[in-house]
């Protein structure tokens, strides 16, 4: 059974004078343990698709099933809880709470889930060690490089034991060394823990390391290749 099932999803932005059809009937199925890149030219609908899969935005038409649950028509608060307990997010930037340390940022998500303090701290330390930030646990985001911040974001995304991790252009602001480092960590987590990753990217080096590449063009899937 697939982890993410997108069925004939349309998304029309009506806020503008001329409605924009960002997704035009997307069908997609992603299984547990996949390492999938969504690629395509700017404006092809990558962010729109990821936002819908992540329950941040809702489809104008079509349906979405995540982890066996149809989330197409969930109410806002139910969606928030669903996201908290099922999906890990890594954004391009502004991932972290600036006033908290790396460790507190990772703990935060577990706090929202109601974990007790000891377990939170233990898991935060462990995750930060896994992403190679043992030395930075008590640093604030402003005291870390962009790559380090993204690694904290990955640790944070994993902290809640999500079903999968969504990342919209996670390496867009990173230099190539940091990009490689982040990808190493993601690939490692995918292979060792079978963590499912779905990410969008423009970066050929990132595309090269994906095992499945879905190409969007003008709101439709143009190709879907397993390597």
């Amino acid at each position, binding site marked *: 059974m697939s982890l993410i099932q997108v069925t004939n999803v349309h998304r029309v932005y009506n806020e503008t004078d001329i409605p924009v059809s960002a997704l035009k009937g997307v069908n997609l199925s992603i299984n547990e343990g996949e390492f999938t890149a969504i690629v395509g030219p700017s404006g092809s609908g990558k962010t729109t698709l990821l936002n819908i899969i992540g329950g*941040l*935005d809702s489809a104008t038409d079509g349906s979405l099933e995540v982890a066996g649950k149809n989330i197409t028509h969930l109410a806002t608060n139910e969606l*928030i809880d669903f996201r*908290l307990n099922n999906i890990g997010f890594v*954004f391009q930037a*502004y991932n972290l*709470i600036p006033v*908290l340390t790396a460790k507190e940022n990772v703990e935060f998500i577990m706090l929202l889930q109601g974990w007790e303090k000891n377990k939170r701290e233990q898991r935060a330390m462990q995750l930060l060690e896994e992403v190679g930030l043992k030395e930075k646990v008590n640093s604030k985001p402003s005291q870390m490089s962009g790559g380090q911040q993204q690694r904290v974001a990955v640790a944070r995304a994993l902290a809640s034991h999500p079903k999968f991790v969504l990342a919209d252009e996670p390496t867009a602001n990173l230099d190539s060394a940091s990009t490689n480092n982040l990808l190493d960590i993601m690939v490692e987590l995918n292979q060792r823990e079978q963590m499912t990753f779905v990410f969008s990217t423009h970066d050929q080096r990132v595309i090269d390391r994906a095992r499945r590449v879905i190409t969007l063009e003008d709101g439709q899937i143009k190709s879907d290749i397993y390597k």
Partner: protein
Amino acid sequence: MIQKIAWKNVWRNKLRSIILITSIALGIWAGLFMMSLTTGLNTQRIGNAINSGLGHIQIHHPEYTKEYNPKYFIKDTALLSQTLSQIPTIKSWSYHNNFTGMIASPTSGYGVALIGINPLTEKNTTSIHTKIISGTYFTSDKKNQIVIGEKLARKLKVELNNKIVVTFQDTSNNIISGAFRVTGIYKTASSSFDESIAFLNKKDLEKLAGTSSIVNEVIVFLDDVKDVAPTKNNLSTSLPMLQVRSWDDISPELGYANELMSIALSVFILIIILAMSFGIINTMLMAVLERKRELGMLISVGMNKRKVFSMILNETLYISLIGGPIGIIGAWATINHFGKVGINLSSMGKGLDSLGIGSIIYTKLDSQMYLTITIVVVLTALLASIYPSLRALRMNAAEAVRQN
């Protein structure tokens, strides 16, 4: 942790938070100080009027106060004395024999109220003996002494030990005059009082009028001004044939001024509260909109609306709860200080003098008012923080996380 984040968020923009905290503190401080000033002003005005002669309660023959005709005097002084001595809330009283008359100096003459007093008992009631600025207050046994106000002395162009002629109508409507020597000059906080009231020894007046000891006015002082109403009722029932009036029956304008000031104060407080609310709303809204992306991220990763709301609410409350106490404690210290040393307003003292306030104002505020203001400030802060907090909830996760 949400409280901790909120607390840290307060200090992200230190300058802005400090400005908001300061303006809240200043608003409260100014509000309380204004209140204490008007309360002090009013208390002094009323206190001065009461102490210099009004008393808390006055008792007369019911006809007397219509025309101030001395033929309407109190006949049964034995019952009166007995009644007064039996009411525990009464501190002291004095008997007057008053006449309306004229005082003439070689240069001019003025109409005045002649208060015939018993110097011994008078000192237990009114405070004129403490307001003597030159001469004495009936300390010698000499006959025909008169104590007049500083303003009247100036108008009559008389000095201490000068003689003046006092003319009045006695109980049988005869015109009587006598020469009196100015042995004391007093000055109260009220210049209108000082120009229209003269004190004489009751015995001298009665001798001049050829009457026996007469009482046509009783000035009653209580230990506590709060007991005025019940004591007045008590006296009215015990002395049904006499007229018993409280200070605010006699001088309702003192009470009106009280009301007027409290209306003006309410308006003033309202303005401060409005300004405070707008300050809070504006600043917090700015803080929320500036963090649009971050709040969107928090909602995206699973922070629910209740938690986002309470985080922003907490930020606002922290700011108010720092500013509030600073303002209240600052005001308390200032009010206490000026309650002791007073604020010298003699530069504008002339106006205040004619209002009967005096040129030094002692600030004063009921402890109850501090509580009220504290509650009002907390409520205002809470209400003012609702809008920015709601605004934070309107963040659309998908919109906020879009990177452009």
